[in-house]
């Protein structure tokens, strides 16, 4: 449009000219207009996702450095590098180049350790971030899909960690690979062939390191990057959730604008995360591969541990009894064509707990929506105490996970505390079964108690820390009323009552609907109602009397009281 040139803006400064050039070609102004002052809510618990993102950036940078020196070849060589104890030892080229990175490349050891620490933190940050999202109900509509993307990211993070862990081709990870081989072989029908295809023949073969390498440096990181883009895109579409509080509603976002405050805080935080990872890499040895020696199928170190995020699967393997008396979980099935073997002692612990954890994790938004019949959009987060059943389920899951995780160290627990290894295993087996239930019950009680405490504070005020003596000589602590801003946070949650089974279009109640109603009652039957207007007014009229906190039972009929 030549006519518009008369009115087109002309920049005068050099910087302005460059910016104007970019703007007229790439359309920067609309982007700045859209994002420059976009509002992000601020809360410390929102930082875990940032930590995950930043550690991933650190992983990309340090990983790229490592690829410049690492040679993923299983070809045979004699080590002639600087680490004297291994001088002249026969090993794979992969292990030799990993040793060279550690001892012959300046900064190589540092980058290796930064990479490993950042990987451990990456998975940890994702896990804690997911727990935050779960416990605050941030996965509810419209964010269910982003929760699924997040779960996928966690699995990809595990895949990235595992494929990278095995690359140095030393004894520790070699035994790890052998365990994987054993687990894969337990898969019925196709397991043996998967193992052969994975290793290019029999274990260990000479292909696995190269194959894991391309997965580790290309396929998995590319998928992670793709998922991160989708994840952040959806955060922009949905806008961030926010905690309940004064001024926050379902229709607004309260927080700081991207420019300058949020960008400065989040950008600065990247450098802080990097600094902490650098401290870890500089001061704390991780995966001292030079101590292990090259892979050899015969020796093994006692007390070895996988990286922490693989521990729960390893622990599950340890907890499973392979035999009960003379009964063996190795099941030889007589078929007409011959006998086939189902290694249930491996298959069950390797697949079932992890399968249940991930299935419930992926499906939870839909499970909860089905139970609660709540299909509304939620942008205000739940305080965990205000969703006692969900919080209980989450803690039960954590306990289940942690029991398996602890089992991965059962031998270290036994040697460190001088107890019998068998007893440690028996106790952990018991905890594996009962721990989640105990955790659920305790957590739900704690949540209800915290809700009652909130009611106390709303109705009676907070403890001021001032002891007063009444004219009668009685000592009591003065209570101070909260201002409305603080009060609002404590009262602004819904009193969710159980929804009984409802008939369908044909007027009949389906069996699944009855089941749903049962779950629904389990979810909401025991609850502490938020303080109502009337209760608050009543409390204000006689500020010093004790008002019992009403706890509703079945449909508000009975009350548990305190």
């Amino acid at each position, binding site marked *: 449009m030549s006519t518009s040139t008369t009115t087109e803006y002309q920049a005068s400064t050099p910087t302005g000219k460059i910016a104007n050039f970019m703007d007229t070609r790439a359309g920067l102004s609309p982007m700045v207009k859209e994002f420059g002052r976009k509002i992000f809510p601020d809360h410390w618990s929102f930082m875990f996702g940032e930590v995950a993102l930043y550690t991933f950036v650190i992983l990309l940078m340090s990983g790229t450095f490592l690829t410049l020196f690492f040679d993923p070849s299983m070809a045979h060589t004699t080590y002639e590098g600087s680490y004297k104890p291994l001088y002249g030892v026969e090993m794979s080229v992969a292990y030799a180049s990993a040793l060279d990175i550690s001892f012959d490349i*300046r900064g190589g050891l540092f980058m290796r350790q930064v990479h490993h620490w950042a990987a451990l933190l990456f998975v940890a940050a994702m896990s804690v971030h997911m727990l935050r999202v779960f416990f605050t109900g941030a996965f509810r509509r419209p964010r269910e899909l982003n929760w699924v993307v997040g779960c996928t990211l966690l699995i990809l993070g595990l895949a990235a960690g595992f494929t990278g862990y095995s690359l140095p081709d030393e004894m520790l990870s070699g035994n790890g690979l052998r365990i994987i081989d054993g687990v894969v072989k337990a898969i019925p029908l196709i397991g043996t062939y998967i193992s052969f295809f994975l290793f290019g023949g029999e274990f260990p073969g000479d292909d696995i390191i190269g194959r894991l390498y391309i997965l580790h440096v290309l396929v998995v990181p590319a998928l992670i990057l793709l998922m991160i883009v989708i994840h952040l895109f959806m955060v922009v579409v949905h806008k961030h959730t926010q905690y309940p509080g004064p001024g926050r509603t*379902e229709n607004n976002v309260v927080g700081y604008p991207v420019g300058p405050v949020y960008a400065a805080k989040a*950008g600065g935080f990247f450098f802080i995360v990097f600094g902490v990872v650098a401290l870890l890499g500089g001061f704390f040895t991780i995966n001292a591969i030079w101590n292990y020696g090259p892979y050899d199928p015969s020796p093994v170190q006692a007390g070895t541990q996988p990286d922490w995020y693989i521990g729960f699967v390893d622990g599950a393997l340890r*907890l499973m009894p392979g035999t009960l008396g003379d009964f063996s979980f190795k099941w030889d099935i007589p078929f007409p064509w011959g006998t086939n073997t189902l290694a249930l002692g491996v298959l069950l612990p390797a697949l079932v707990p992890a399968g249940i954890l991930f299935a419930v994790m992926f499906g939870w938004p839909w499970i909860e929506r089905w139970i609660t019949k709540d299909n509304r959009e939620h942008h205000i987060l739940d305080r965990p105490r205000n969703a006692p059943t969900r919080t209980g389920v989450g803690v039960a899951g954590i306990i289940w996970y942690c029991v398996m995780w602890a089992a991965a160290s059962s031998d270290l627990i036994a040697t460190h505390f001088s107890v019998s290894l068998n007893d440690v295993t028996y106790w952990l087996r018991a905890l594996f079964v009962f721990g989640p239930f105990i955790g659920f019950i305790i957590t739900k009680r704690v949540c209800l108690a915290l809700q009652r405490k909130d009611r106390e504070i709303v109705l009676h005020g907070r403890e001021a820390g001032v002891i007063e003596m009444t004219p009668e000589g009685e000592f009591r602590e003065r209570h101070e009323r909260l201002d409305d801003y603080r009060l609002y946070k404590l009262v602004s949650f819904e009193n969710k009552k159980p929804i009984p089974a409802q008939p369908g279009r044909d007027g009949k109640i389906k069996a699944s609907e009855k089941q749903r109603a049962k779950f629904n009652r389990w979810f909401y039957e025991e609850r502490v109602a938020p303080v109502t207007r009337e209760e608050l007014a009543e409390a204000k009229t006689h500020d010093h009397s004790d008002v019992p906190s009403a706890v509703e039972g079945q449909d508000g009929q009975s009350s548990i009281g305190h």
Partner: protein
Amino acid sequence: MSEQSHGGPDHTGAVEHAGVEESGKYAIDNPGLPPHRPRLADEDPKAAKRAERQAAFLFGLSIVGTLLFFVGYFVVGQIGPDTTFATIRLQNMLLGLGTAFAMLGIGVGIVHWAKTLMPDHETTELRHEVRTEADRQVAVGMIEDIIDETQVKRRPLLRNTLIGAGVLAVLPAIAIFRDLDDTDNRSEFAAENFGPERLRHTMWATDVRLVRDPTGTPIKASDVTIGSAFHVIPEGLNELDPHEMLNQKAKAVVLLMRLNPEDMQVSPEREDWNVDGIVAYSKVCTHVGCPVALYEQHTHHLLCPCHQSTFDLTQECKVIFGPAGHALPQLPIRVNEEGFLVARSDFHEPVGPAYWERG
């Protein structure tokens, strides 16, 4: 809380929000954002100046950190065969410390700047519907037009042949991975070298001598005293090509121990598998394949350090604890004319973890 809507002809399509602002919904109405409380630096120019200096100091610290990195890299200098462990540790520490200061200085400085000097007024932005009804109608209209223009509904022949072609076209992408295991292509005995049959055979065969791992020295029966244990490989293993060596070793490793014959329960078909209480068992755990490396002499137990499967030597390595599902396979052995221990045959069952075709 209103009834949930489940769709249907009379459904308006409006999205319900939880906890929408209705006066009287909660014990008090939303009081709105609390009043802004000014920070020290907002009101006192001296405090602002101090915050500025603090942030600048942190940035300065970052510069020092970067310099420290260079000290570690260039002054500690080149590493090589003569570098001591202490020097490497020092260099690694300086690189870490330098990077940490460089990064933390910038990071903490910027955050301090943002928290003390940049405005801390919380502001509000409205949310938008993820999808408006008007958008939906436009989009559905467009998609209907697009499908119409392809004429795919009127011409099922096009659709069906394309689906057929597409499904088939995927198959080569799966088939091409067949040679991930290409051992049969490289072998004269293709049938033997593909498939699970391989797992049934190890290097052990009649009269193959038991030798020590890794030295390869043969073992005389008289060397094996009660209570001792040997890590054993088949003779000739070390002479194999390095890769074949690892593959064979992964299956063939054996533990050799001597028990008091009176302590052992020997099943009838295994009576000649031991030599006066000298027994050889596969070292590969039947759980998931770790080496069963721990021998507890006084209890006659073998323990796998990976998952703690425990096998009882006196009961032909039956599983007595842990996750393994079956006993360690026994290698039948005897003594040859020169007094060396040799295998009577290969193992009578596959070693290592159970797999589908094991039987």
